[in-house]
């Protein structure tokens, strides 16, 4: 039993390199020198070079030790991770930069993601660790980034492009506000196991868990359990979260939906939600070619048609969703029409449209 609890995380000051302690809060400007490399300049005139490295996020402790070796060699024993799970090496020494980059490359790791790039993919657990998952996250991310690799290591975009992957609609990660979002979805109602349910769950809380009221007591008084009105089920998984006896996972029913055009920054346009582009693509491990192909197609069209500084969602807003579907060749279906709370807000209350 621990001598102590509630000590919280270590003081961040212990974790800051000298060059940052000295210029803390007095940075003046930065310049992006090349993909994965930027320079910050302080009021004092001192400089700090940052090299950003792509990480698979799911790593072994030996990977972390490799990063530590590099940090010890070039960065005085300090490093950081970014909010998108990249690794950042910082040094005031210009001369360290190229050798550092060379050693990173030796480890087979990509340098990039700074500026108008596709950065690392915010993602989740999937088949690696989550019981809710409708797909795997790590495998999807690997497949996607292999496909879009040059967008991480080179400048090929007019603006940042942020991708997120979530393995179920709980959407761990800012999936609902990403330029490109891939979401694992179930499309079959839960398979109720009433013996298990009777043993492990409280029926009232199971009934209460369903937002659409699709779950009802079993008609047969004898059976202590529930039935699901399948036509009212939207596969949200709430029932499964509160009761293990109602799994939704299904080899053929599970797959991916793709949402596009979200952002969170307040630059120019306010933050926006991502909107449905493709309702369903079946799981096709290990490479999910239909998913990577769909993303590639959207990115290609966006790159061709977008203007300087225009995020994907800003581009779509300018040309209109009907033109987005036309240019990408993605079919618009009944599934794209909202029927959740507030759906009427999404209907087009004007005669303005493009053919």
């Amino acid at each position: 039993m621990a001598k102590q609890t509630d000590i919280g995380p270590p003081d961040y000051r212990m974790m800051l390199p000298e060059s940052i302690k000295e210029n803390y809060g007095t940075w003046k400007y930065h310049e992006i020198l090349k993909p994965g490399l930027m320079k910050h300049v302080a009021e004092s005139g001192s400089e700090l070079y940052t090299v950003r490295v792509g990480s698979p996020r799911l790593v072994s402790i030996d990977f972390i030790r490799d990063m530590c070796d590099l940090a010890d060699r070039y960065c005085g024993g300090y490093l950081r991770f970014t909010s998108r799970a990249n690794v950042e090496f910082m040094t005031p020494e210009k001369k360290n930069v190229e050798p550092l980059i060379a050693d990173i490359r030796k480890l087979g790791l990509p340098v990039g993601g700074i500026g108008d790039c596709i950065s690392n993919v915010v993602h989740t657990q999937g088949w690696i660790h989550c019981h809710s998952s409708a797909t795997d996250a790590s495998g999807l991310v690997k497949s996607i980034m292999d496909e879009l690799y040059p967008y991480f290591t080179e400048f090929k975009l007019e603006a940042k492009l942020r991708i997120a992957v979530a393995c179920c609609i709980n959407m761990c990660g800012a999936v609902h506000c990403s330029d490109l979002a891939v979401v694992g979805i179930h499309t079959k109602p839960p398979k109720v196991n009433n013996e298990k349910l009777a043993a492990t769950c409280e029926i009232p809380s199971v009934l209460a868990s369903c937002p659409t009221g699709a779950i009802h007591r079993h008609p047969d008084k004898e059976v202590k359990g529930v039935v699901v009105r399948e036509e009212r089920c939207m596969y949200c998984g709430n029932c499964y979260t509160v009761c293990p006896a109602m799994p939704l996972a299904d080899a053929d029913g599970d797959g991916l939906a793709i949402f596009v055009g979200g952002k969170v920054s307040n630059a120019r346009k306010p933050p926006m939600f991502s909107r449905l582009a493709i309702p369903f693509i079946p799981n096709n491990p290990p490479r999910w070619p239909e998913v990577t192909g769909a993303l590639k197609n959207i990115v290609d069209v966006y790159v061709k048609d977008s203007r300087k500084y225009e995020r994907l969602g800003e581009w779509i807003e300018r040309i209109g969703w009907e033109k987005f579907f036309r240019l990408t060749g993605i079919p618009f279906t009944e599934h794209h029409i909202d029927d959740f709370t507030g759906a009427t807000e999404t209907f087009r209350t004007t005669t303005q449209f493009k053919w």
Partner: protein
Amino acid sequence: MSDTPLLDDLEKGPWPSFVKEMKRAALKSPAAKDLLGLVELSYKDRVTHWKHGGIVGVTGYGGGVIGRYSDVPEKFPNAEQFHTIRVNHPSGWFYNTQSLRKICDLWEKYGSGLTNFHGSTGDIILLGTRTENIQKFFDELIEIGFDLGGSGSVLRTPTGCVGPARCEWACFDSLDLVYDLTQTFQDQLHRPRWPYKFKIKASACPNDCVAAIARADFTIIGAWKDSIRIDQKEVKEYAAKGMDIKGLIADRCPGGALTWDEKKGELSVKPEDCTRCMHCINKMTKAIRPGTEKGASILIGGKAPIQKGAFLSWMLVPFIKIEPPYTEIKDLLEKIWDWWDEHGRNRERIAETIARMGFKVFLKAVGLKPLAQMVKHPRSNPFIFFNE
């Protein structure tokens, strides 16, 4: 022939491979080895092989560990129990290598050797250990100066952007604020008491580099009260280098606050029309900077779709000074938690409670006066409750 043909395919290609990493871990850990097999099986079956998590944890805490059991223990006995431990990261995700190496050593001793740097809430995610190891690991974790992060219906590990440590646009000290709040609210972070989870994220300017507005119930985003600062000499530099300042900067200003004088080569701002979107600052880093009277806006309610649909945080406090000991923010948090605790239903996030009870009811409860800045526009319907 390999017994993980599907996963092996994911070792190919330019992007670094998590499968390589799993195999590295598998060399030292039987648990990691069995995980490989189990995940290969999922790739074959196209379904997860994890069961609903049971309650596991450390004495005195209600969260910080996600229990996880396999549904094919007979096939992969070493991965039968594969619990996750969430370790609270240091502000800004900065580390010295000694600390990192200590964590690695601990995880080599008690876990699978697999980890996420970081989970999407911001914790260090240590994947895969057995029930009997959890307490031991925790005891030694405390020794090396770390503690668990949040899980369940608690305050989740607060996060903030790199801010003043390495960013010229920081309007407040996101690292210190996050550290202070995390320390102050350790009890709320470790001991479930609320209707559901509650998340705090801090971005030190409106670029929102931790996506706080989309993911945090309580969203702190940097702001300034005075005018952006323009260095006309540098502006001329950009013009000289051929930047289309009218088309790309002035015309893109959402507030219509910028005017570009082609002849004079001058960019002028009407401060009252600047909405602090950051665009001009972002694109002319040497010429334009935020104002000097700095602080933050506080927004409320961001969350994912479960269950009443996704919310983006919306404006609650347009401007507040952010200075230690951060009393004002802490008081506001306490008021919000008290109200939510009393009125929130089970598994109802703060946004959903407010949506159900009414924003003005919430404002009264936490003692804030209604402001036009809180809404995109006033109501269009005539259904006003005057009696309130």
